[in-house]
């Protein structure tokens, strides 16, 4: 028969040892629990894909429309095709290796579109840890998992734990909200509020363009993101409207546009590129507006003028099938057609502010 030590010394020793082992077991258990959660999540996703309960779409590895326009536009078109059909999708983000803020904004707009229609927009996390954190911080998953999502004219998503990053949307321009965006940027860069006539003008005019041409149902989206190195802010303005060229071509200044394009007869690509150049050229005496009012059409030339005046840097415009890198004055045609417009630029400390 086994002998149990009953002395006080042994009792204390046993108790201590048991407590240590209990603690150690607890620690392992919690780790296990965490791992299991992730594993379950992952396997559930795979099962869902295997079972083909949703339409499976693979997110491009480089998920930034500026860096990888063709693939990203194809992705947007494919996802929206299912939204129009009223079908749910499974978006596989596991293979993303590069994710920029314009990519997060695009995914968010698509997610909201699906949520508003009551459709499921499921997907997987990126495998890359840093990108997974970027996603988590964006608040993307809070919206994804929200059970009582309500359709609204305006949304505001401040990034989790980061006061300097936010995403706004709406169907009308609110100048106060534009002012708040400028305040976030200048406070983030300088630690105090500064004024920027150029930023106010550009963001306001671009939103107004969306309100005018993308229709009241389509929302404008603005995302303001602080660079991880704290040296700049990325501003992205996006809408799922018709796009600049399409709107201009079918607008009331159709005759002017047709005459313009006539010069490039037989070379439609060059025609479209040159038309886009003309639209952004603020030195033109007459601007092109989709309305027949010749005093209008100030928004896009002003965007370029403010860029040249150093209110912001690295201006890119992607709309329909034209990709404009205004920094290098490089305009090119894309194979894929983006229904909508995405405009993005960076703001550094060295850019122009009024005071």
């Amino acid at each position, binding site marked *: 028969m086994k002998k149990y030590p009953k002395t006080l010394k042994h009792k204390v020793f046993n108790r201590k040892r048991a407590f240590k082992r209990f603690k150690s077991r607890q620690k392992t258990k919690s780790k296990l629990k965490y791992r299991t959660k992730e594993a379950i999540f992952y396997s559930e996703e795979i099962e869902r894909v295997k079972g083909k309960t949703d339409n499976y779409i693979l997110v491009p590895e480089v998920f930034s429309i500026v860096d990888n326009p063709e693939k990203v536009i194809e992705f947007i078109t494919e996802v929206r095709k299912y939204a129009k059909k009223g079908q749910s999708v499974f978006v596989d983000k596991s293979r993303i290796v590069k994710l920029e803020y314009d990519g997060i904004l695009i995914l968010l707009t698509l997610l909201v579109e699906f949520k508003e229609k009551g459709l499921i927009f499921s997907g997987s996390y990126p495998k890359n840890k840093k990108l997974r954190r970027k996603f988590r911080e964006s608040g993307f998953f809070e919206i994804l998992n929200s059970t009582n999502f309500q359709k609204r004219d305006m949304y505001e998503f401040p990034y989790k734990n980061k006061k300097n990053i936010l995403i706004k949307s709406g169907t*009308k*321009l*609110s*100048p*106060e909200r*534009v*002012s708040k965006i*400028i305040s976030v940027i200048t406070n983030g860069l300088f630690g105090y509020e500064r*004024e*920027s*006539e150029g*930023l*106010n*003008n550009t963001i*306001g*005019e671009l*939103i*107004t363009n969306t*309100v*005018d041409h993308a229709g009241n149902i389509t929302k404008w989206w603005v995302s303001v993101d602080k660079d991880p190195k704290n040296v700049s802010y990325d501003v992205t303005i996006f809408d799922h409207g018709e796009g600049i060229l399409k709107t201009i071509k079918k607008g009331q200044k159709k005759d002017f546009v047709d005459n313009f394009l006539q010069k490039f007869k037989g070379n439609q690509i060059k025609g479209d590129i040159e038309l886009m150049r003309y639209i952004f050229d603020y030195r033109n005496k007459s601007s092109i507006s989709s309305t027949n009012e010749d*005093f*209008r059409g*100030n*928004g896009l030339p*002003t965007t370029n003028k403010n860029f040249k005046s150093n209110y912001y840097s690295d201006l890119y415009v992607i709309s329909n099938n034209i990709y404009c890198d205004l920094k290098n004055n490089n305009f090119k045609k894309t194979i894929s057609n983006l229904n909508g417009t995405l405009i993005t630029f960076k703001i550094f400390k060295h850019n122009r502010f*009024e005071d």
Partner: protein
Amino acid sequence: MTKTKDIQITDIHFEEFDEDLNKYIMINIGTDFSPHPGPRYKKQGDNSAEEFFESKLNDEFKKAKEMDKTIILDLDSVKHGYLASFVEEISGGLVRKYGINNVDEFKKYFRYKTERFKHLLDIFTDKINNQLKK
């Protein structure tokens, strides 16, 4: 064909008050309307130029006409500045809206007071001249 006289910056820039203050109607856009002026039309968003005309300028222009006064638009108290379309409305738009036919008529009714947005005066003259030539 006679060439229409162009408006100059000196014609529209208001710098000093005359001794007779009764000659003027002052409108400070930042304090009398909004520190955040918005787009051109009401349907586009808040604090639009259209709203500015309806809530403020139309009545004041009527008064100015009846009492032979000049409206001074004080531009400086707004927060970040103006959108290009708002700028167009408060320059070329005045010509369209109030049926102004020539430079003298414009000078008689409208002037801009600004220290902060002097660069806009150039744009104003352009927009006004464009509209007057139509």
